[in-house]
C-alpha cells in the first residue's frame, strides 16, 4: 500500500510551531494553550498509526450473461489489523450499471476490526453487450485521526461476456445454394426429401413408394413424385465494424452485433453451419461450424467486436479467399459508410457469392449540423446511399435498409422478398 500524509498534518504542526514561538516572544501562555492540542493530536496520531493489513478478493457469479441480466460481484474482505475507515471502490465499466448509476463506480466506507471478515455483494446490471473485466478495485484506508492514508489499486478482475438479447426470428434468409449434408433448408435441387417438387414418368430404379398414384391413374403409365431434399447451408455473417454511428437509443454497431447474434442462433438451430467475418479495424473470421460450440465460439468473437482504429488493414478491399466457403450465403450487416466495406461487398458479388445486405441505417444517428444547409445535405446523403443500394441491387444483391425501431424479422422478410426477384451476378462480372 502507498502511504500518504494528510494535508492537515502540515497545517497543524505549522500553526502549533508559530503559536509556540508567539508565546515565547510575547511571554504569555495563551498561544501555547490554544495551539498545543493541534501539536499533541499530530504526535499522538502518528505514534498510534499502523499500516493496515487487509486481504481483498473479488469474484463474479458468472462469466456469461445477456443484456438486461444482473450479475453479482462478491467482494470479500479480511482484516488482519483493525482499520478505522476503509474506502472500497469497485470500478464499473461503461456498458454496465452499478448501484450508483451507469458506469459510475460503486464505493463504500466501512470499519473493520482485527480479524473481521466481510463479504459485500455488489449487483451490476448489464446494459450493453461486450466483453468485460469486472473486479477492478481501489482501496483507501485511514487511521483513527485521519492523519495518514494508505492506498492500493487491486486487480481482481474476472471476465464477463454479455451477449445481446436474442430476437425471435420465425423465418430467415434462404440461400440460393445448399450444401451436400442433410439439414433443414429446402434445396432447389431434386432428390429424396419431404417437400414436393414435381412429377415425372417412372424410370427404372425409382422406388415404388414415390409413385404418384393419382397421376399414374390419369395417364395410364407410372409417374413418380419428385421432391426437394433438405440440406444444410453455410451462412457467413459479415459484420462491418469500421464505423459506428451512435444514436440516442442504439448505435449501428450495437444493432449489427445484436442482429448477427440472433441470426447465428437461428441458423444454428436449423442445423446450418454459421461462420463470421468481422470486417473492421482488424479483420477476424471464423470458419463455418455447427452446434452449440460453434454458437459460443461465434458469440465470444462477436462480443469482442469494436471500432478499432489501426493502419494495419487500412488498404483492405477484399476478403481473403479462404475465409468464405463456396456456395455460402453471406449476410452482411453494415452501415455502408466505410469505402473499404463497400468495396469488399462489391468484390464478393463479383466473386459470385450469394449476398444479402442489411444496411444498418446511420441516418437517424447522425447528428444534425448547424446552419441552414443541414436538410439539403441530409437529402443529398440519402440520395447517395440510395444510389449505392441501387448499384448493389443491379448486381443481384438484396439490400434492405434497417432503421432503428424496426424488428429484425421485418427486415429479413423484406430481404427475402427482394431476393425472389434478384439474380446472382455472373462470376467475374463487372463490380462497379
Amino acid at each position, binding site marked *: *500500500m*502507498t*502511504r*500518504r*500524509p494528510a*494535508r*492537515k*498534518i*502540515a*497545517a*497543524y*504542526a*505549522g*500553526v*502549533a*510551531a*508559530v*503559536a*509556540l*514561538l*508567539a*508565546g*515565547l516572544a*510575547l*511571554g*504569555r*501562555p*495563551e*498561544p*501555547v*494553550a*490554544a*495551539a*498545543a*492540542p*493541534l*501539536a*499533541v*493530536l*499530530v*504526535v499522538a496520531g*502518528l505514534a498510534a498509526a499502523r*499500516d493496515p493489513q487487509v486481504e481483498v478478493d473479488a469474484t463474479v457469479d458468472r462469466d456469461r450473461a445477456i443484456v438486461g441480466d444482473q450479475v453479482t460481484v462478491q467482494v470479500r474482505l479480511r482484516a488482519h489489523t483493525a482499520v*478505522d*475507515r476503509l*474506502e472500497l*471502490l469497485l470500478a464499473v465499466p461503461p456498458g454496465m450499471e452499478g448501484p*450508483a448509476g451507469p458506469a*459510475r*463506480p460503486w*464505493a*463504500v*466506507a*466501512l*470499519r473493520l476490526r482485527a480479524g473481521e471478515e466481510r463479504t459485500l455483494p455488489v449487483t451490476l446490471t448489464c446494459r450493453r453487450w461486450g466483453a468485460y473485466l469486472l473486479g477492478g478495485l481501489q482501496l483507501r484506508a485511514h487511521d*483513527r*485521526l*485521519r492523519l*495518514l492514508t*494508505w492506498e492500493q489499486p487491486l486487480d481482481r478482475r474476472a471476465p464477463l461476456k454479455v451477449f445481446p438479447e436474442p430476437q425471435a426470428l420465425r423465418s430467415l434468409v434462404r440461400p440460393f445454394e445448399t450444401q451436400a449434408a442433410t439439414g433443414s433448408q429446402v434445396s432447389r435441387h431434386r432428390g429424396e426429401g419431404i417437400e414436393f417438387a414435381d412429377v415425372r414418368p417412372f424410370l427404372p430404379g425409382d422406388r415404388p413408394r414415390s409413385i404418384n398414384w393419382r397421376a399414374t391413374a390419369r395417364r395410364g403409365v407410372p409417374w413418380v413424385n419428385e421432391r426437394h431434399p433438405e440440406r444444410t447451408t453455410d451462412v457467413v455473417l459479415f459484420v462491418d465494424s469500421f464505423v459506428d454511428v451512435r444514436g440516442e437509443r442504439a448505435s449501428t454497431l450495437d444493432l449489427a452485433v445484436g442482429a448477427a447474434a440472433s441470426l447465428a442462433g437461428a441458423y444454428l438451430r436449423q442445423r446450418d453451419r454459421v461462420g463470421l467475418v468481422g470486417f473492421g479495424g482488424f479483420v477476424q473470421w471464423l470458419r463455418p461450424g455447427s452446434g452449440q460450440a460453434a454458437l459460443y465460439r461465434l458469440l465470444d468473437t462477436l462480443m469482442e467486436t469494436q471500432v478499432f482504429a489501426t493502419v494495419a488493414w487500412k488498404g483492405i478491399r477484399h476478403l481473403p479467399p479462404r475465409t468464405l466457403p463456396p456456395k455460402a450465403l453471406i449476410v452482411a450487416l453494415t452501415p455502408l459508410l466505410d469505402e473499404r466495406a463497400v468495396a469488399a461487398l462489391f468484390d464478393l458479388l463479383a466473386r459470385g457469392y450469394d449476398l444479402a445486405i442489411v444496411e444498418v441505417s446511420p441516418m437517424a444517428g447522425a447528428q444534425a449540423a448547424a446552419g441552414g444547409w443541414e436538410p439539403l445535405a441530409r437529402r443529398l446523403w440519402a440520395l447517395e446511399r440510395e444510389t449505392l443500394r441501387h448499384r448493389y441491387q443491379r448486381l443481384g444483391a438484396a439490400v434492405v435498409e434497417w432503421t432503428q425501431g424496426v424488428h429484425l424479422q421485418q427486415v429479413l422478410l423484406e430481404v427475402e422478398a427482394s431476393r425472389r426477384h434478384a439474380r446472382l451476378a455472373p462470376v467475374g462480372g463487372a463490380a462497379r
Partner: protein
Amino acid sequence: MTGLVVCRLAAVAVAAVLALAPLAQVHGPLRSALAYLAAAGLLLAAGAVWRLASLLGPALLVLLAGQLVAPLVRGGRVDAATPLAGAGLLLYAELASWAQERRPAVRDEPPVTRARLAVLAASVVGALALGAAVLLAAGLPGGGGLTRLAVGVVAATLTLALVAAVARRTATRPS
C-alpha cells in the same frame, strides 16, 4: 451528500463563533480592526471547508490571532477562556478536514460515522483538558522568567523538529 453539507455547515458555524467571539471583548478602533480580521478568518475558513484545503493553515492562524488580540490588549491576568478557543480551533480544523476527505460517491456505513464522531468528541474534550493544563502549568510558581524561557525555547525547538520529522516520515512511500 447530506452528511457532507452538514459537516461543512458545522465547520463554518464553529469558525464563525471563533471569529466573532473576540469582538465582544474589545471596544473602540481595535474592534473595527478585529472585525476585519474576523471577516478574513471567516472567509479563509469557509474556503478551506469548501474547496481549498491548503487554506486550512492560514485560516487557523488568522482565527488564532483573533483569539489572542483581546488577552494581549487587556494584559495582566491569563485569559481563562483560552482552552475553549483551543478546543474550538481543533473542532473547526477536524470538521474542515472531515468535509475535505468526504466524497459524495462514497457511502459511509453508520459505524464509521459513529466512530468518527466519538473521536472528534474525545479530541475536543482532550483539547480542553490540555489547554487548561497548560494554563495551570503557566501559573505554577517556581522558576523565574529565565526557566520559562528555556522551557519555551525547548518546546518550540521540539515542535519545529516535529514538523521536520513529520514532513520526512510521512512522505508518500509504499509501506
